[in-house]
């Protein structure tokens, strides 16, 4: 087992391990808010459930990016390369792993607040849902930049 391969394995672990933090906490926050909203307004639990699930699915996207980078590192990254490439692969893991924390937390927060808002005024479901989705998409931008840098480090450098 050579250098590059060892670094790649480490990097894949870092990418997924750190990348799971943000989405995990964020989605948990959304679930907690959904429970709170349901206990306040049990009549609209189906609307709350729908918004929670979609909000969580969007909040999970940075976690999915981390998984993609980890899988690419495991299966598609070069096995034999110089030290510069090895360090680039390590950098890709750090880039995606650390970069996924913020958007995961932020999007989960937005999902939680969206669910809370629907529990408070269920008739405004459409508006709340739309604002939530756009806000989540914009707060995901930094996670996308992390993904772009990670892909560049894997395939281009």
């Amino acid at each position, binding site marked *: 087992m050579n250098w590059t391969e060892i670094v790649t394995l480490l990097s894949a672990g870092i990418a997924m391990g750190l990348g799971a933090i943000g989405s995990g906490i964020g989605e948990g926050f959304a679930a907690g808010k959904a429970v709170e909203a349901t206990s306040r307004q049990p009549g609209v639990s189906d609307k709350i459930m729908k918004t929670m699930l*979609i909000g969580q*699915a*969007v909040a999970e*996207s940075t976690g*999915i*990016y981390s*998984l*993609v980078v980890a*899988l*690419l590192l495991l*299966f*598609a990254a070069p096995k034999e390369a110089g030290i510069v490439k090895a360090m680039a692969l390590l950098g890709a893991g750090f880039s995606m792993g650390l970069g996924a924390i913020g958007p995961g937390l932020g999007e989960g927060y937005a999902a939680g607040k969206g669910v809370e808002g629907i529990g408070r005024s269920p008739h405004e479901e459409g508006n709340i849902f*739309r604002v939530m*989705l*756009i806000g989540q*998409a*914009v707060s*995901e*931008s930094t996670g*996308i*930049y992390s*993904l*772009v840098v990670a*892909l560049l480090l*894997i*395939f281009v450098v």
Partner: protein
Amino acid sequence: MHEVGVVQTASFDLGPLHIVFNPVTLIMTWIVIALILITFVWLSRKMRQVPGRRQAAVEMVMEMFDGLVKETIGKDSRRYLPLILTIFLFVLFSNWVGIVPFMQEPTKDLNTPLGLAVIVFFVTHFSGIKYNGLFRYIKSFFEPIPFLFPLNVVGEIGKFVSLFFRLFGNIFGGSVIIWVAYTMLMSSWWTSWILVVLGPFLAGFFGLFVGLIQAFVFMMLSMTYIAVAKNQ
């Protein structure tokens, strides 16, 4: 296992130009366009004053989109409705066509989302200039203080970079996950039966669900960017 992340390209020389293109993406894009055409020609056949069930369903969807565009863009919303609806339908069909075996999503290739984002970019800034006048529109980049001009420009470009990389990242990510699951599970006969359960689930989640969400997000963000530039 090196085929992931590699796009099949073909190239030819036309005089001094060296032209590179992706045949798979091109073919799939035409298939998607044909699918959209066939679907909507079929849906709009035999239109009547009193709509039948099929026509009523399409009219309901159209009215929903009309309302959505009017609410977001405001004045002259009908001018933007065809563009917005086309973007939504094209992205949606592109994302969904990938669940058919041997078909590839055109959106999996970075060039397709990039092309769409370039269209939205030009429409956004053209609308901004048309509705506010050239001088007022350029001035808006120097607000609230002139010092922030570089930051505003970077933010403006970043909006579109994240717009097309969001679509690409989600669709490409889904296809990488599906590809890894298939390659690993098909490698031995006693794990391949897991695919009977896992395959439809993966296709349903990453193809249908993520595809729908991303098509909606792409459309909503394009519309919001246009509205922000137009109505400032």
